[in-house]
């Protein structure tokens, strides 16, 4: 049972390399951290395949979720001095921050693309379903789980609360930028979070920032911009992501075709057939994925075993820059040449685009788009950030799109067979780069 005041007898702290300490005073939060659904996040990396590019990027959704909670705790502490709200809204905010990623699966980005699932839906199911998380939340009241799910799903009535966890500058993004920079070891990605929290002011629909703190917000936007290009959109990480997606596609296809696996994918079967239960989903983690990938290296299907070896041993695809309007001219010929040399283009010739990534730049926002960042001017009016900041304005209008064509260079360089076709493929590919 929770204590009547809802507070722990003694404050608990987690040592954290990004925020130094994460403070927990509420029994609710402590008990949520102890649930099996939350502990599962220790087995899901925050940055998916990025560890193959930046070897330090082994941090998990568990670390990040605690970090988002800690930022939210500090935000709430500051905002409570400037506004009043219903008594339990504070705990709704903290629980939502802690649980916002609880529905993420292993390598969720690839999984979601291949199987058309949505981690936000799984988050809602974990919060509302028959889970330890739900039991802990329900002790706060029957409607408490639904309120937390609504905040995370951005359908909560109080839009200010939603904006603290999900907007163009929120607890989630602030933690992942700082944390991902720390663990990848890159020198960019830093900004003065304390300053941003100090200049944050509550408004009806969102938190805004005092004009005097504009430079701290500029740094945050620059950090987001640099992390996008240098870390999140790194071509090697994307190559690993491409191979991972193709492994899942291949396994799904083989299962549908009745292929007899030496290592049947029991853990994925219901996912492949879109019948996965909540319990089955909770049991999926990256350890399971690696187990199958290693086992599948020995499968008889040459495509599945080759792709798994490439992923596990980091023998990734190479890439060339790709202009879709040029590409469309040579695409049919390229595909035909791949078939002639006995390499299935469906699996070995892949275009990856900027829109395939779950990260984005800051958008100043025109009508009908997402809410932009607003500055609170000395006269009390609000101004969109890029209208005041030359730096933000200058990067807001820049090219944000990019396509790359991935392929197995090793197979093309081995020209003992089909030498002529392979040379032609290489010519076509390099023609792409201009």
């Amino acid at each position, binding site marked *: 049972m929770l204590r009547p005041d809802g507070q722990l007898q003694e404050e608990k702290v987690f040592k954290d390399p990004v925020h130094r300490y994460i403070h927990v005073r509420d029994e609710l939060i402590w008990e949520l951290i102890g649930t099996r659904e939350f502990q599962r996040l220790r087995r899901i990396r925050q940055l998916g395949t990025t560890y193959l590019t930046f070897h330090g990027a082994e941090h998990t959704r568990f670390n990040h979720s605690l970090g988002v909670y800690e930022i939210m705790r500090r935000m709430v502490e500051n905002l409570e001095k400037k506004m009043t709200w219903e008594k339990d809204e504070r705990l709704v905010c903290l629980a939502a921050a802690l649980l916002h990623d609880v529905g993420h699966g292993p390598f969720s980005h690839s999984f979601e693309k291949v199987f058309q699932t949505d981690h936000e839906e799984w988050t809602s199911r974990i919060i509302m379903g028959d889970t330890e998380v739900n039991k802990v939340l329900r002790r706060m009241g029957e409607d408490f789980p639904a309120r937390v799910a609504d905040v995370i799903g951005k359908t909560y009535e109080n839009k200010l609360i939603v904006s603290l966890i999900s907007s163009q500058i929120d607890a989630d993004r602030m933690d992942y930028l700082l944390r991902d920079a720390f663990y990848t070891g890159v020198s960019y990605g830093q900004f003065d979070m304390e300053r941003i929290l100090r200049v944050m002011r509550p408004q009806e629909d969102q938190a805004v920032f005092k004009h005097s703190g504009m430079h701290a917000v500029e740094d945050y936007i620059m950090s987001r911009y640099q992390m996008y290009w240098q870390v999140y959109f790194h071509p090697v990480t994307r190559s690993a992501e491409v191979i991972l997606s193709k492994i899942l596609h291949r396994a799904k296809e083989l299962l549908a075709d009745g292929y007899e696996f030496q290592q049947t994918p029991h853990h994925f079967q219901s996912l492949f057939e879109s019948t996965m239960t909540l319990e089955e989903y909770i049991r999926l983690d990256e350890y399971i994925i690696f187990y199958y990938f290693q086992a599948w290296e020995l499968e008889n299907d040459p495509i599945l075993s080759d792709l798994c070896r490439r992923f596990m041993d980091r023998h990734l695809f190479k890439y060339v820059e790709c202009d879709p309007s040029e590409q469309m001219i040579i695409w049919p010929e390229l595909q035909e040449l791949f078939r002639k040399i006995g390499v299935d283009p469906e699996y070995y010739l892949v275009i990856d685009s900027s*829109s395939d990534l779950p990260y984005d730049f800051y958008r100043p926002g025109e009508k009908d788009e997402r809410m932009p960042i607003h500055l609170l001017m000395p006269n009390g009016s609000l101004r969109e950030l890029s209208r005041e900041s030359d730096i933000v304005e200058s990067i807001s209008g820049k090219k944000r799109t990019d396509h790359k064509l991935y392929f197995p260079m090793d197979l093309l360089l081995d020209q003992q067979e089909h030498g002529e076709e392979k040379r032609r493929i290489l010519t076509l590919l390099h023609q792409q780069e201009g």
Partner: protein
Amino acid sequence: MLQEHAKLLALLKETEEIVGRKKLQKMVYIAKRLGQPFREKYQFHMFGPYSEELTLQIEEMCQADFVEELREKKAGYYQYRYSLSSKGEQFLAAVFPEKKMLDKELLRALNEKSSKFLELVSTILYFDALTKEEVKTKVFKLKAKQNYTEEDIEEAYTFLEKLRH
């Protein structure tokens, strides 16, 4: 190759022109929910279901000159008109020849409606696991500034019913 992009080009081909980013967002969402083969990921935002992925795909196609984007100044904001360029048409023909991907009638019916109405329809679809009364409560709370009436909501349900049959 760029299969999801191609579906958006096909959408513009079938509708000839779509006016407004919000309208485009809501049309794709509603069409997806009604079984059209769009795969963009949506989340609930200030104006209802919104897909960052879709925004980026359109941006990519504008930069590849597959889509023409016309920016018009309106009172206090910009409005965007989208149509298929001749290069976009060539791409569709080269990469997806003879492939009929979308339901023209459905898309045209959506395109005839205002973006405000489509915002309501897409919001209703977003909450389709709730009862009609619960959906109404959600709409009145989350969309207070849009001033939707009971009649608007009824009209949206009727419209959806018609599209489904």
